[in-house]
């Protein structure tokens, strides 16, 4: 095993650990996308360019995009619920 593979394996391990320790969903999604790019580099170094290409398109484009849209939707609904709660509070004051 050469230096490049050792370096990439270490980076993938570090990125994976960082991804699971981040608790904020948007940052975690971006970290998962970066982890996918590093995994793609590792696959490429292991002479699997087809798999690397699939990993890039699915792991760093498709999944983060869907996750970000879902997170945005959830946040929209949360702010809508909070807005309604504020309106009720104002009604009590009157």
């Amino acid at each position, binding site marked *: 095993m050469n230096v490049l593979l050792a370096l990439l394996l270490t980076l993938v391990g570090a990125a994976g650990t960082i991804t699971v320790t981040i608790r904020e969903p948007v940052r975690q999604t971006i970290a998962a996308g970066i982890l996918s790019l590093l995994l793609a580099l590792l696959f490429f170094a292991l002479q699997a360019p087809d798999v*690397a290409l699939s990993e890039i398109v699915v792991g760093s484009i498709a999944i983060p995009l869907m996750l970000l849209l879902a997170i945005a939707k959830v946040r929209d609904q949360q702010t*809508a619920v909070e807005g309604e709660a504020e309106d009720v509070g104002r009604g009590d004051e009157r």
Partner: protein
Amino acid sequence: MSRGRLAIALIGLVLLVGGLAWGTAGSYGFGHYHALYGRIVARDSVPDRSATNAVSVTTFDYRGFDTLGEEFILFVSVAGVIVLLRRMRGESGRDESLLAEEDRRASESSRWLGLALVGPLLVLTVYIVAHGQLTPGGGFQGGVILMSAVAFVAVGGESVVLLRLRRASSGVELAESAGAAGFAMIGFGGLVATGTFFENFIAKGTSGLLTGGFIPLANIAVGLEVAGGLLVVISELFDQRFTRERS
């Protein structure tokens, strides 16, 4: 974390690491490949199918039947997304109007970046799909890249495009279905012409883009299905995000 949970986590960790170590102890060293199948495919794919990408030859030709199953998995998942999201829209009485302009405006830099990437991504899609049997890539990767080109248009602030796409969704769904049906038809073509499902029945060619028998056709069919299916999913998600709830 309580002590009980820590103990359970430790037991699980020990079992996992021990199991992995036990399971991989007798295997060959890192980078020492000993299986026969890969060697046979690597040796035969060029003389047998005139295609240099042995991975494409395996997924679309030698193991075309497996890929057909994966195609239908994607098809059914997209159908599931449509059923879930469209039913929700009808139930909650969603307003079809867009959010106000200022709520969906992108910053100037993401506008430029998004719109500048669309052209190169479209060219890359055509390249990846057309060269699937020669270099790494193929219909699946090309299809996802095409979806990302449309997504970059939306990220650049033009989310109206995706809403139009959803309202004219029958065309996108037609592309998806045509791709799925086309791939199955290629299989049946083999059945009719040679008596074996997914047996090559087209001239293999010698060099250039038109090699590998039906593999270029299979790449186009898979690309159509993947791009169509993902566009349906993405436009449904964007639609959920950028239309207003009726209050």
